[in-house]
């Protein structure tokens, strides 16, 4: 019961903040809603017995990535409203309709139980940091290294792009 309450509160906050993110007038507000959204998602992770992911979500997303967004928003000091110009050929409404249609389809699939998740296979301890670490450094070592190379490349790319002149 308590879990359900917590879930519905969390879900409501997540969707509400999400909606605010895409509708907020001010970009800065949008960013703030995004942070709030992420924090709520982190709470959801805690409920799903993934405290490590929750902390990582807060640390990396909220503490790192969104700070970056905030910086850029502050640096992009627009003299005119960013959405002033609209191309007549854009099909925004059609996109929304299509998205809604897809959502309905998925909801139908999930709600009608057509896609049944498999039953539990292993045993996941509540303190699963060690398990994640083992998986990362054994079975997923090469993806892990590739990901680190990806980060390095992204870092260099961002520096090259952002610097006025090298």
């Amino acid at each position, binding site marked *: 019961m308590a879990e359900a309450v917590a879930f519905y509160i969390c879900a409501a906050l997540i969707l509400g903040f999400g909606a605010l993110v895409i509708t907020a007038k001010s970009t800065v507000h949008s960013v703030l809603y995004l*942070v709030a959204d992420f924090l709520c998602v982190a709470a959801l992770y805690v409920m799903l017995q993934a*405290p490590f992911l929750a902390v990582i979500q*807060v640390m990396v997303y909220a503490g790192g990535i969104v700070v970056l967004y*905030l910086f850029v928003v502050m640096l992009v000091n627009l003299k005119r409203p960013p959405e002033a110009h609209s191309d007549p050929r854009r099909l925004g409404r059609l996109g929304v309709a299509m998205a809604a249609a897809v959502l309905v389809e998925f909801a139908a699939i999930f709600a009608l139980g057509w896609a049944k998740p498999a039953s539990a296979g292993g045993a996941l301890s*509540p303190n699963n940091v060690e398990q994640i670490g083992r998986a990362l450094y054994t079975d997923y070592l090469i993806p892990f290294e590739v990901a680190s190379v990806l980060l390095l490349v992204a870092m260099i790319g961002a520096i090259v792009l952002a610097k006025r002149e090298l």
Partner: protein
Amino acid sequence: MVEALILPLVKIVIVLVAVLVTVMYIVLLERKVQAWVQVRLGPMRVGPHGILQPLADVLKLFVKEDITPARADKWVFTAAPIIVLVPALIAFAVIPFAGDLTLFGLTIPGRIADVNVGLLYVISVAGIGIYGIILGGWSSNSKWALLGSLRSSAQLISYEIAVTMTLVTVIMLAGTLSMVGIVQAQLAKGWWFGFMQPVAFFIYFVGALAETNRAPFDLPEAEQELVAGFHTEYSGMRFAFYFLAEYANMIVVSTVATTLFLGGWLAPFPNVSWLSFLGLVPGWAWFMLKTFGFLYAFLWVRATFPRYRYDQLMRLGWKWLIPLAILNVVVTGLLKVLV
């Protein structure tokens, strides 16, 4: 019911009150220490030796007019001090102030919660505090504040890397992310990690100074250049929040340092038999003693060192502390594998 709800609430109230009182008196202590270092007397009027000065300050801040700049983003302007203060306070949730206490037949753990990712929790919560600074500076619609907030956030992000790297070495030594587990690991090894990781301890100390915007790294609020940094436009209660948050942050980093490097609530050398009389002093007293020692070092450094220039600050962080911290991680790993 008692153990699940009442006890944590009681502990939260105790910790909050203790932190706020400590902040008040840390401010007085800072003024006194500064004065003594400069051969002055410091506050002397309110109460004997100015002992009631913090109360007077609080009173002043409560009654002062709260001004919001005309073209400020009011919503954000209001939220920013709260965003700063709240993470600073909730970080205390995982700090183990003492070992297990027995009171009224109940075994009470000496902390609010023992999260198994406690250390990461502290780091991530500390990261949220940056928003308050950035948003405060930005929403003030003032050049001073904006520049101060940019400087501050850049500084915080830079030094966060070095500090996190030192924490990684501690995690490697302790083999756990839990704060309680780290203290117990120090008990098991018989050494405080401060002795085993002097380099990490040093980097942590320097990084902590920068993270809390303390002298000699108080660039974001450099009075001579930026008036007061990101909180230039704040006054009254909101300014008090910032003020509170800064000192609360100092206490957070001090308690974390105590936990990670100075053995937490443990008496010095707990496994040396002829020093066992030190165990007569309760653990929370040792913890307070160590934390205040660390805090005193903060004040001492402020009274002693001149302020860094901004480029020097960045160079120190990126070209010395971060490489040194990474090297420290590598060396620690090698020693762990080889020894």
